[in-house]
Structure formats: structure tokens, C-alpha cells
């Protein structure tokens, strides 16, 4: 029968749920993840599973310490999204204890110590990633070569089976007949900027077989499949177009300008889009609602700045990829940008102001 009249309007059923939003993000990660497994082996999935377990355990631990029920916090799936994004960002050969350190840092310190979901100023997955990148640069920059037969043959490289990957992650031991040199390869970004530093010209660099149609071979398709997931998020209205478009524009427009000025020293702009974490960053990381700007104009500024900073660090910084740094830098600026980009409220004309 009738319930007491304490609550206030609206009474109609709510249209969205946080856990469903998070689940859709996880769903959107699937195509890109499969592409990564295809090119970089089972290590990606093993890392995802490890990171998820560590993230849920860290979240539950903090909830227990705070004397709060753990299930609602685990049930919003936000820790799971953090874990998956982290696992995608790190190399598929990362030792398990680094995943543990990175995730514990992300969930316990970056997220929960600031108050938990909704209160963290920094993107937890990226903060965890950057924490490891600074502390363990070698392990964090050792990437496998994409599993493309011609490419492997050309460089005499080998791939890792599921068991090989698992052994490498859990014990740190490579298969007896292989060395690191036989399985690892520079990422396209690494390749490009190391060679540029050695004063090679772009046409010389692009002569290498690691390059595909838009960027690094294999890598470009990972990017494409993440793009598909991003379009799914746009279609489901989990995210709006502002941040992804602004990130890409902020990266591509200046990159295009440099390329026009000196095509010998600056790569074609599409290279930036399909190398490294640009697509993943634009659609899945910069759009993290908690740490991004919330006003439409603010989101454009925020995204464009991430794109620009990424480009600047790639060209003139010490790290090959820079999406994580750019996102964290702009996280700090988000509240200020929001403050100065409030939309014009209905009935508050510029002229009517008294």
C-alpha cells in the first residue's frame, strides 16, 4: 500500500545507474582488448585478471578499514574499470608484484584516501601507471613485438605462449631458449623518437617494416578497435563527443602544422593518433567523469590541452608516450577550468545583467 510522503519529486523511475555505466565502459573495452591479445599475447588477459583481483581486494580492504559495507563499493564496478584500464596500459610482461603495487597505489592512495569514488582528483589508473613508470622505467617500457609473422621473421623475433606469459609474469623467467632481445621490440613511438633523436629523417625511419598504414603495424589496429569501443560509448551516451574530439584535435592540429612546416622532422599527424595510447586515452581515460571537466566548454579546453601536452612530451619530453602525464596534469586544472567556463544560465543575458 501507500508509502509515507517524505520523499520529494521526481517520482518517476530513474533512467541511469552507475553500475550500468561502468559495465558499458567495460563492454566497450572488449574489441580493443581482443586486438591486444591477438597482437601481444595472453599476458594482457593475465594482467587484467590480476589487476581486477588486486583492485577489488584493495577496495574491499579500505571499505573494511573504514567500517563500511564492501558490496556497494565493489558493485559499482568502478574499481574494475580502473583495473582494466591499468592492465591495458602496462606492458603484457609486467611482473605480478608491479601490478599489485600499481593497483594498490591507484585504489588505496589515489582513490580511497581522497574519499573514494567521486572524490579523487586524479585518474587512479593513470596515477598508478605513472607511479610505476617513474619507479620502474625498464619494466614499464619493455614491450613485446606485435605478433605479425612477416614482422617477426624480418627481425628474427619470437612470441610467447600462454604458459610462457604466465611464467614470465609470475616468476620473471623467460623460456629457456629465449632472451629479452628475442621477444621485445620498441614501440612505434619509441622507434620514431629514438631515431629522430639520432637525426634520422622521417622517410628513413618509415622505411622500416614496423610501419603500417596509419602507424605502427599491429598497434594501429589496436587503436582502431578501441575507437570502435569509443564510438559505442558515444552512441550509448556514456560519454559526450567533447573530450575525445578535443583530445584528437589538440593533438592533430599542431602535429599537422609541424608536419606541414617540416615533413622531414615531424611525422604525419595520423601517426600520433594510432601510435601509443591516443585513442584509448581520448575515449576511455580523459573521459573519466570524476577527474575531467564537466562543463561543455571546459571539456573542450581540457581535451585540447591533453592533446597538446601529449604532443609536446612526445616530441620534446623524456618519455615516449605522454597521455598519462597529460591527463594527470589536466586533472589538476579541471576544477579551475570548470569554474571559468560555466554555461550561460537561461535568462542571464549579457545585456540584461544589472
Amino acid at each position, binding site marked *: 500500500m501507500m508509502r509515507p510522503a517524505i*520523499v520529494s519529486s521526481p517520482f518517476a*523511475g530513474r533512467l541511469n545507474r552507475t553500475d550500468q555505466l561502468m559495465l558499458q565502459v567495460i563492454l566497450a573495452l572488449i574489441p580493443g582488448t581482443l586486438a591486444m591479445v591477438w597482437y601481444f599475447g595472453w599476458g594482457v588477459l593475465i594482467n587484467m585478471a590480476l589487476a581486477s583481483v588486486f583492485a577489488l581486494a584493495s577496495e574491499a580492504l579500505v571499505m573494511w578499514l573504514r567500517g563500511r559495507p564492501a558490496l556497494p563499493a565493489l558493485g559499482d564496478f568502478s574499481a574494475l574499470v580502473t583495473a582494466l584500464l591499468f592492465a591495458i596500459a602496462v606492458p603484457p610482461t609486467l611482473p605480478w608484484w608491479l601490478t599489485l603495487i600499481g593497483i594498490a597505489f591507484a585504489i588505496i592512495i589515489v582513490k580511497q584516501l581522497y574519499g*573514494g569514488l567521486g572524490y579523487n582528483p586524479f585518474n587512479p589508473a593513470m596515477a598508478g601507471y605513472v607511479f610505476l613508470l617513474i619507479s620502474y622505467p625498464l619494466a614499464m617500457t619493455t614491450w613485446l613485438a606485435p605478433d605479425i609473422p612477416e614482422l617477426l621473421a624480418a627481425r628474427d623475433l619470437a612470441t610467447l605462449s600462454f604458459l610462457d606469459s604466465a611464467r614470465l609474469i609470475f616468476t620473471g623467467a623467460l623460456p629457456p631458449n629465449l632472451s629479452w632481445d628475442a621477444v621485445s621490440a620498441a614501440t612505434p613511438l619509441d622507434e620514431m623518437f629514438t631515431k629522430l633523436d639520432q637525426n634520422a629523417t622521417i622517410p628513413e625511419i618509415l622505411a622500416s617494416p614496423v610501419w603500417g598504414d596509419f602507424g605502427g603495424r599491429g598497434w594501429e589496429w589496436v587503436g582502431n578497435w578501441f575507437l570502435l569501443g569509443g564510438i559505442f560509448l558515444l552512441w550509448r551516451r556514456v560519454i559526450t563527443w567533447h573530450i575525445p574530439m578535443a583530445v584528437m584535435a589538440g593533438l592533430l592540429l599542431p602535429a599537422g602544422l609541424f608536419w606541414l612546416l617540416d615533413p622531414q622532422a615531424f611525422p604525419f599527424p595520423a601517426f600520433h593518433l594510432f601510435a601509443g595510447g591516443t585513442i584509448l586515452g581520448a575515449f576511455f581515460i580523459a573521459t573519466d567523469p570524476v577527474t*575531467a571537466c*564537466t*562543463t561543455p566548454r571546459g571539456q573542450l579546453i581540457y581535451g585540447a590541452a591533453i592533446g597538446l601536452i601529449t604532443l609536446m612530451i612526445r616530441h620534446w619530453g623524456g618519455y615516449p608516450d605522454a597521455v598519462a602525464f597529460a591527463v594527470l596534469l589536466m586533472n589538476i586544472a579541471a576544477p579551475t577550468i570548470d569554474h571559468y567556463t560555466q554555461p550561460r544560465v537561461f*535568462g*542571464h543575458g549579457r545585456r540584461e545583467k544589472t
Partner: protein
Amino acid sequence: MHPSRLRAQQRPLWTFHGGLHLPDEKDLSNGMPLTAAALSPRLVIPLQQHIGTPAKAVVAVGDRVLKGQLIGEAQGAVSAPVHASSSGTVLAIRSHPVPHASGLNAPCILIETDGEERWAELPPPLGPRPDPAALRERIRWAGIVGLGGAAFPSSVKLNPGPGQRIRTLIINGAECEPYISCDDRLMRDRPGRILQGVRLLRDLLGVEECLIGIEDNKAAAITALRQSLAEGGDAAGIEVIAIPTLYPSGGEKQLIRVLTGLEVPSRGIPAQIGVLCQNIATAAAIADAAIDGKPLISRVVTLTGRGLGRPCNLEVPLGTPFRDLLDQAGGLTSRLERLLIGGPMMGFACDDLDMPVTKAVNCILALTQSEAPDPGPALACIRCGACAEVCPVSLLPQQMYWHARARDLDKVRDYNLFDCIECGCCALVCPSHIPLVQYYRYAKTECLARDQEKRQAEQARLRHEAREARLERLEQERKANLRKKKDELANRPASARETTKLAATSPDDTAEDPKKAAIAAALKRAAEKKAALASQGLAPKNTDNLAPAQQRQVEAAEARRRELNAAEDAARPQE
């Protein structure tokens, strides 16, 4: 008819930010024509059914009243009278539950109906082109208020003052809240009456254009009004306009924006931009008052929701208790979860079926569990900004929420809290199920209370300062007088000073007037006599020559004094 065809060959329309496409659920209740509700044995007529000062009862308990008779008189400028909705006897005038969001009781006139429906004497019809003042007076007499739900007295709204020139009259038939279909049904069943009212309003205000805005999910209503307009002759300046269905396009400011592209300034009224807005049912009520001389004693109410057996629209005498209406809508079913007054977006919960229908009640909504599910506990805000995307006023609801939660009222206000129309869009899309509107209502109430406190403190301060200033002024005046006196004394010749001292009177008197001299002489004599007696030891004491009774009193008093002193000595602690 398809919405796009309804909108063909129309004037251009504008949009507002945000809004929501909601399942309209109007089919539940809008299938059947309007029917009259059965007369209740008892009517409960609140003295305040409008915004403004409550009416004052002009009948007494036991009085016989006739249908349409004035029973409560308007008080002050912004007020509206109330009339008996049927004939009968006044049972009581007392506090009774009324449909108001506050949930508080209010004074009501209770009438036991006699079923005879005998009418009081009604005023004569006004002509087709009545004098504006006479029409306004008739509207005020009839107790007509905005029937869209706000219940602001129409006569006040229709008198925008000499400075305001109204160019556009907007008739609101948008009815954007889901479920509600009372305006829809009225437009379908009585388009002619509505248009009569619209013409009266058009001529009253002398407007150039008169736009009837209706959401395009009400194709039948749009067609009915257009047909009636085409048949009925005088259609000068009147246009029926189909607008896209988008909640809350029926909000006054939103509808004005959609139809004219103008924005009512923040905290302003439409008259400031030359626009006046009236609800479709209000227009019909104005026609009733002007043409038939009938006061506002009934209104159309939608009874709907899946918690009712047979949803419908009824024309209900004002004051009919909800309980009596529910039976005519098939009764409440066991699936009922929540009973609301108004729509699911802006309505409020009803917890007493004895509440009567008032001028502001447009819908009684019985929702089931699936229609009004419990949103569950609120989770943390993830700043997703979905609220800001749908806000029709372009506010930043999540920022207001954070500041309201932190009780930082200045900040909430900086984010334009008072522009919030409480439409509920933000709360509906919030994935964390935070009751956002509740936070804004809380913050608004707190702000208003604080303003009130501030005003009172300011007044108290001004009063205190005025008092201090007055006391200071009086003190200064006193001192100035004193100084003046001293100066005058100081400047006077020595002989005069002597005399004055003896006379001990006004220092202004320097002349040796005979009266003063006589007094001085008498005083001198008295003093001399006293001195002489004292020198002989014969100065009279007031204890000499006492009567025996007085002597006894003196002795008794001294005895008491001694006792008291003894007691005090005993009580004093040993040092």
C-alpha cells in the same frame, strides 16, 4: 497524425537547452470524453487555493449557501475569492488537510450538500467586447487563478501595469508532464469555449499575436482547436502551434522561449519582455465567468496511473474529497505504491484521502511499484554531468549539489540556485540516484530563512542605532543647556548672582520682580526663625507630639528592626 505533419507550414520555433523525452503515459487516461464527477455529500473548500493572501470567510456555521455563492472574500491585492461549489449548509469552518507540498493543514469551509444544486443569483453576461476594467473585475470576482498548477490570481497577472506593453499572448496547452491529460481532454471536448476565452484575453490585452502552444503528442487536441478556430469566425492573430514534445516545454519560461525565442530575464516576469502566458483551462474559466457569469467552482482533474482501476478525466466541483473521486475512477488497486498530487516529475505525495480538490489540483496520480520504483540509497556523485546536459535552465546541478551538501549557501547561490525550476530532469538522469531537487529545495529554504534573519538583524541594528543617536542627541542638548546656564551665571553681575542664589529660581530672572522678592523674604524669615529656635535647643522634631497610635507603630517598627538585626548577625558566618 504524425507530429511532423502537425508542424508543417508553421512559424519557426526555438529550442531550450536540455530537457527529457519521457514516456508520456497520457493514453492511460485520455481516451474517454470529460464527464462530470458525482456530487459529494460533503465539500471541503480551502480559503486559500491560490498564491497570495487567503480569502476571509463571509459565511457562518449553519448558514445555507447556494451554488456559486461567495463564501470567502479576497483580501488585499494579490488574492482570490472562493465560492460554494454546490448548495447546502455550512457545517464548520476549521483547519483541515489540504493538498499542499508542505503537508500542513489550512482553514477550510465545510459544506454539507443538499443535492439540489440551487444556483445563487449570477451577474449578467458581459458583452462580446467587454470593457477591460469590467472584465478584469469579473475575473477577480470569479476567483480565477492559473489552472496549470501555479494558481496565481489571473486578474493580477492580466493587469501588468501602465509601463508594460504586452505584444504576445501565449496560451499554454503544452501539458508536458507525463500522465496528466486534463488540458488535452478540455481542448478536445471544449475547443470553442477555450477560444472564446482566448479572444476575450486577446482583446483585453490588445495583443498583436496570440499563440496557443501544444505539444505534438496531442494531435487530437491540436486538430480540434484548429478546426474550431477555422469554423468559429474571429481568428485574428490567433495561431495554434504544435511544438515538439520535450519535457519541460510546458514551463512558462520554456514555452515562451520555444514559441518566441525570447528569454524571460532571471528573476523577472514575462511581462518585462512583452509576453503574457495563460493556461488553456484558465482561458476556458474566463469565458465561463464573462459569458455565463459563473465563478470558478469546478475544474478538470485527471485521475490516472496503473494503481487506479479506470483512469479518466472528471470535471470536479472544487472541494470534493479525493476519496469520493477515486471510486469513479475504478478505485485504488492493490498494486498502488504511491499516491501523488500532480505529475510524476513535479507532483508531491498525498497521504490523506480526505484532502479536497482545489483550483491547483490538476491530477491525482496512483502509481504502482513499476511506475514509481524506489530509487534506493543515493551513491556518490561521479560528476558525470548528465544532470547538466538535461537542465533546461543550463545550470550546473552537480556543482550546486556539492555546495548544498557542504552547506555552502553562498556558493550554491553563485551557481544560480534561484533559477532552478525544480523540474526534476537532473534527478531523473542521475546514475547515482541522488535526490538532487531535494537538495535544491533545502538550499533555497535555507537561503530564504537566512535572508529573513539578516533582514531582521539589520532592522534591529537600525532601530538600536536610531535609539542610541536619539539618546546621544538628548544628552547633548541637556549638556548644552547646562553649559548655557553656567555661562549666563558666570557673565552676570555679582549683585544679581546674590539675589538669584537666595531666590533659587530660574537664572533667566535677573529683574527684581516683587513675587521673587516676597518669596526670598519669606525664606529668609523662616531660616532666621529656625536658627533662633535651634540656638535655644527648641528645634521641633517630627517625633515630638505623636499620637498614641503613631507611638505604638514606631515602637513596633523598632522591635522588628532589632529582631532583623539579630537574625542577620546570627546568619553571618564567623570570620
